[in-house]
């Protein structure tokens, strides 16, 4: 709770210290009217000193009011709630797929200890880790949408032939395939490298040597002891990723014209829409905090040494 408060306070100050005035941007470059701008400043409370603005913001927050977006002229909560669904679909599924893909290939290569598989997977993980997400996105669009015509280039639903019922959901899944793949490939190296290195360190632990010495089945050692110990750092990273997932993968959303929170965030930054930005940051801090709590609980489940009283 304290962490969230501190984060919000910092966000508030940083956002308000950035150059650019939301009302000025809203009034347009060639047509500002002092009178109108003043009226808007009063309407959004921007005429008051920063400390008063901050107090008012936190007071409203306590009442559950996220504020009113300056540029969209709509409640922040409404704008955010519209975007949460598409973003979660994208980021949550790609994080899960990335985790499964990364962790399982790390487990596989460590178990088999075949040099070339290890080399190929390490090479791929470096490639995807160093690849800018928007570039990978464009390559996927070019190959699978423009040349092979198997997936749409962008968007979340087919507009030319709108679908209903179950077909609608299938249509959304079809549209989400490329962006989810893109994000999952970008996430893959993180999970792969972390799982791989923690397996390597667990492999050299004394207790593993002991199990081997007692003649325990290698499959059991790996499945029950090594992987369970090695997965803990991966879970931490997964928790953090999920926390950030709520605000979306801005670049990937932009490249795939995905109507999610990431795009809303970019627009809010460019328009200096303070309430909207604060709202998005609030959701982000809260979700990171929740994700961390869930991770701690998972730790306790996976690692019998950790028990909370």
């Amino acid at each position: 709770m304290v962490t969230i408060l501190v984060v919000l306070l910092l966000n508030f100050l940083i956002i308000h210290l950035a150059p650019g005035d939301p009302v000025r941007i809203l009034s347009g470059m060639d047509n500002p009217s002092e009178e109108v701008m003043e009226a808007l400043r009063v309407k959004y409370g921007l005429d008051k000193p920063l400390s008063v603005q901050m107090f008012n913001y936190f007071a409203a927050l306590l009442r559950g009011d996220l504020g009113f977006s300056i540029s969209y002229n709509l409640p922040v909560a409404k704008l955010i709630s519209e975007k949460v669904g598409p973003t979660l679909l994208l980021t949550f599924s790609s994080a899960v797929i990335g985790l499964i893909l990364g962790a399982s290939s790390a487990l596989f290569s460590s178990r088999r200890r075949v040099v070339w598989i290890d080399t190929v997977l390490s090479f791929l993980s470096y490639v995807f880790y160093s690849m800018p997400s928007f570039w990978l996105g464009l390559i996927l669009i070019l190959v699978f949408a423009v040349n092979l015509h198997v997936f749409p280039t962008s968007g979340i639903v087919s507009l030319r032939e709108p679908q209903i019922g179950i077909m609608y959901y299938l249509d959304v899944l079809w549209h989400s395939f490329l962006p989810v793949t893109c994000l999952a490939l970008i996430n893959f190296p993180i999970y792969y490298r972390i799982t791989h290195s923690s397996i390597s360190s667990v492999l050299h632990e004394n207790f593993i040597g002991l199990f081997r010495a007692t003649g325990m089945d290698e499959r059991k050692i790996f499945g029950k002891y090594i992987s369970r110990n090695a997965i803990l750092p991966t879970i931490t990273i997964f928790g953090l990723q999920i926390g950030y997932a709520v605000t979306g993968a801005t670049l990937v959303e932009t490249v795939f014209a995905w109507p999610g929170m990431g795009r809303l965030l970019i627009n809010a930054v460019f328009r200096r829409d303070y309430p909207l930005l604060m709202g998005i940051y609030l959701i982000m801090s809260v979700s990171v905090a929740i994700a961390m709590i869930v991770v701690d609980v998972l730790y306790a489940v996976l690692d019998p040494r950790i028990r909370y009283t």
Partner: protein
Amino acid sequence: MRWRRTRRTISVVLCGVLVFLLSVSCAPPPQPGQHKGGTLIVATQDDPLGFNPDWRTDDYAYPINQNIFNKLVTLDANYNVVPDLATKWEISPDGKTYTFYLAENVKWHDGEPFTSADVKWTFDTIIQEKGNARDHLQSVESIECPSATTVVFKLKRPDAPFLGFLAWYGTFVMPKHIYEGTDWTTNPANEKPIGTGPFKFVEWVRGDHVTLERNDDYFKGSPQLDKVIFRVITDANTALQAFYAGEVDLSEVRPPLSEIPKLQQTEGVKVVLRPMPSRYYLSFNLRKDPWANLNVRKAVALAINRQEIVDKALSGIGEPAEGFYTPAISWAYNDENVLPPRDVEEANRLLDEAGFKLGADGIRFKADLLYFSGSEWSNIATIIKANLKEIGIDVNLVQLEIGAWMERVQDNHDFDITILNGFQGPDPDNLRMRVGTGGTLELGGYSNKDVDRLLDEAAALTDVEQRGKKYKEIQKILSEELPIVPLAEVTDVWVFHDYVHGLSIEEGLGKVTFNDFSLVWLEK
């Protein structure tokens, strides 16, 4: 018996064939009306902020609003004023009374009749609530409605640019019965607009698309298309790929200029490049030294390679700017008082004369060049930096996004030189905003009494030729004093598939405004 039956069958078949052949041979050639139906998908770069068309600047709502609403008069793709809700109009000899005769039987999308009261309410509200077009309505004294189909604007003074600005931005006629007595900034209709236009609003999925459907009661005749969908695609590369993949029929997201040659060679794709009354130009901060020195400004103007800007920064699309107003509005363009050709030697001489001696490091002085983010702007700025290096000016490139640029340049005047562009129509009175004393886009602190006087005189005249002379005189002064240096003309880029017909730049020329798709039909 059997033969008789066979004969009858043969004759029926023959008659049928004959009727078919006759009907085919007599059929008229394909007309737009025969291609009714279909959905036009238009790529647009960003989400609208809302659908109150007159409240504030919203360039992404503007193309959509052109299909939902009408104005009294509008601009065609050649920037000429053409009828819209007003079928004809009269201007009194003293230039102070404008009488508009409105189309009959016009209905709002909710079925209510449209009358002159809607027009009066709209313009009264724009003036009162400080809507986007308020500056251009300053000359309005009163608006009267002698009948349901007649509106009279009484002006305080003759105002020749009035009609052009009425046809431009923030002047859509809004429904009085929906908005009267409410706050026009929060009225629910701002999210579900009701207009008189060719298409009715259906849905707005924020950040994704806006859907419109045909208005069968449209007073100019039912449109051809069933639906128009504006799809938001922020990334220009993605928009281009969506266009290539056929997911988009017309792209309003300008493709990267370097892609245009490839698009032009793609089968089934039409690229139309049109000169636009907008230009890139450089503005000096005259409040600061050394920019107050005319010789320095002259040197900069002589050093910049405008052809290189077009060739490299704009991929050869467009023309280098020569004069001091857009040539697209030819009656007001002065083609005699233009920029001199590039002359680096002379530029160096002028700087020497001004007392800015070349240092040992080859630099006379440093300057901050402020510009917007975006590849086009970066490229222009980089060329200017290289050009000015040749005359010993060390340019520091400062890239800013729009909000930060506005604060530094427009509000705090904290810059040396900056580059910008912008629409300079529909009337040359637009120069007032850019070079008139205190103009909202006058960045450098330039003030010339003669320019201001000429702007006022030109606005009070009704004769186009006489007005043209005044504006040409202004351009002569600008060419001598150089508060700005024009760089290149902006080109309007239209990219669409060849099965799209009836656009405002083709068959719709002179009939509909830029993004009005009421005459569009799809050949497929």
